[in-house]
């Protein structure tokens, strides 16, 4: 018997299979598309296949993410805030604060000693400060999204991208290019701009060590470095930060599965 966690995000859907001993058996990440139910099923099927189990073996399934209500195979849906907190605590027992920069929102979550959410601050009104912002900028600069970190590491000059709005920031970037700034410096400025938004959220309730970063944007080494610098800390980073939500959902599923003591 196993449990499943499914995180249906606006850009990506993630599914993770956990066994009763809390071993991660498998996970899968696919693009969500616009039919969340289908994304959830195919992602879950794929993860199951990798794990060697099938859907009958799932004792409990929890869904999370924006599309959580559309996952018919889930027994329950839980917010991604709670899921991220649970996963972070399991991965790093010393963690008390999670910075999650996802596709369409960013959040700071304060985690208690048992992985419960103490408090959270969210930016979900506006793309600036999220993965979407980076996608738009990468496109505007003709840079591969995965290489943004490498570019910003080469930055030697400080320029500013200060617009509040992604659309205006894009025109600001074009103005900078026209004025002769190079892409390395601009990308570094974009990273700083994202982290400024995060710091404004952190400022509201303060920094609580240790800190971990989750969400797809964690793969951007430039953003990661900038966050570490601003928080003056060494971040705890998991192997696959993008599946943190699904992991947390699976852990919660495990705590609610019936006869969990008899799961093999």
């Amino acid at each position, binding site marked *: 018997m196993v449990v499943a966690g499914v995180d249906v995000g606006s850009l990506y859907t993630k599914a993770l299979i956990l066994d009763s001993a809390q071993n991660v058996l498998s996970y899968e990440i696919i693009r969500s598309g616009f039919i969340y139910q289908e994304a959830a099923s195919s992602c879950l099927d794929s993860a199951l296949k990798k794990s060697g189990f099938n859907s009958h073996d799932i004792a409990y399934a929890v869904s999370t993410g*924006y599309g959580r209500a559309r996952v018919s195979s889930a027994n329950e849906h*839980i*917010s*991604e*805030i*709670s899921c991220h907190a*649970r996963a972070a605590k399991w991965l790093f027992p010393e963690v008390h604060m999670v910075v999650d920069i996802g596709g369409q*929102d960013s959040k700071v979550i304060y985690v208690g000693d048992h992985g*419960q*959410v*103490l*408090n*959270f601050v*969210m930016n*979900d*009104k506006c793309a600036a400060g999220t993965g979407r912002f980076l996608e738009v900028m990468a496109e505007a600069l003709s840079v591969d999204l995965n290489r943004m970190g490498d570019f910003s590491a080469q930055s030697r000059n400080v320029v500013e991208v200060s617009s509040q709005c992604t659309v205006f920031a894009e025109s600001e970037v074009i103005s900078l290019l026209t004025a002769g700034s190079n892409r390395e410096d601009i990308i570094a400025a974009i990273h700083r701009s994202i982290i400024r938004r995060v710091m404004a959220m952190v400022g*509201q*309730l303060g920094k609580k060590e240790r800190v971990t970063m989750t969400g797809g944007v964690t793969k951007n080494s430039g953003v990661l470095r900038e966050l570490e610098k601003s928080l003056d800390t060494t971040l705890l980073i998991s192997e696959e930060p993008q599946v943190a939500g699904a992991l947390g959902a699976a852990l*919660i599923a495990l705590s609610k599965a019936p006869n969990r003591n008899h799961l093999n």
Partner: protein
Amino acid sequence: MEESLKELFNFSGDPYTHLAEWKEGSGKKVIGLTPMYLPEELIHAGGMLPVEMWSSNEPITVGHAHVTPYYCGLTRSIVDDLLKGKLDFIDGILTYETCIQARTIMLIVEKNCNIPFMESIFLPNQMTNPLTRPYLIESLEILKARLEEFAGHEITEESLRESIVIYNRNRGLMRKIYDLRRRRPGLINVKEMVPIVHSSMLMLKEDHNAALEKLVIDLEKRPHEIDGRPKVILVGSLCTAPSTEILKLFDDSGVVVVDDDLYTGSRYFVNDAVEDGDPIEALADRFLARNPPCATKVDSEMNWSDYIINMMNESGAQGIITLIQKNCPPHMCYSPDVMRKLSEANIPELVLEVEHEVVSLEQMRTRLQAFKETLGGV
């Protein structure tokens, strides 16, 4: 929904139709007031119906040719409604400088509409100055004179006192209903409670009193079970009623609202005006009272965080949901300090920014669910 509640629910849901109908039936004048503290009793004593102006039911279009989008939804919506002719039944508009936005609305109204009675009066926005009270009383006397001129007759002390009594009765009845909700959490949901208060801002108080008397009986008859959901109180949403969609989100989110410090909530009725003595002074004193504490009345002795913490404790709630209307300058000036105080006291608070154009319901749903999980565990 009981008939008595339906009447109030419908009035609150469509003030345009109902007010126009009422006006035709009664032959009386309707005076629109910009929120929040203009002395309704004075207009009522003048034989006219004072209504607290409300946020419109559609996106702003023509209004944006006169007010830019970064003004609060209510200001834009009043202008929009006026220009669209949806408020043609209004005989007058009375305003004061509640906040910096209410200031020049009169200019736009005068230029673009033909409303018989238009006044902007001075109500103080700073409370801790010994001359505030006499200054306010003089202002109220001037307002009374202008209303008498428009109404065509004197507003006697006696009639003003009578209006105060009727208004106090209304406040008392609403307090009774709130008390019922505190004792039986879940008996009345938020989607019902807000229209109960909001309709009072739109109806003749005598009519609303009659409706409330019936409603109290009906509500007491409602079956009630113990509600196991985490308890919260709602705070804020100054000057505007939160939209029905948002209220429904609260009701469906897994928490139960047991009390509130909303504008279309307890703030409207927590304090009464004194019924004997000089009625103008009574109205002035009601305005100057520290109850409820208000971000638009700068008062160094006012402590909003203590007030809501107290409310939370007395109602047995575990957390606070604060609604900030987007672009509300007074609320924005106080919310950081309130947030800090609540955080220091380890009180869970969820701050939601709401706006006229209803957007991001999904995001709000996520936040509410996360907050509920914070209070009650997953």
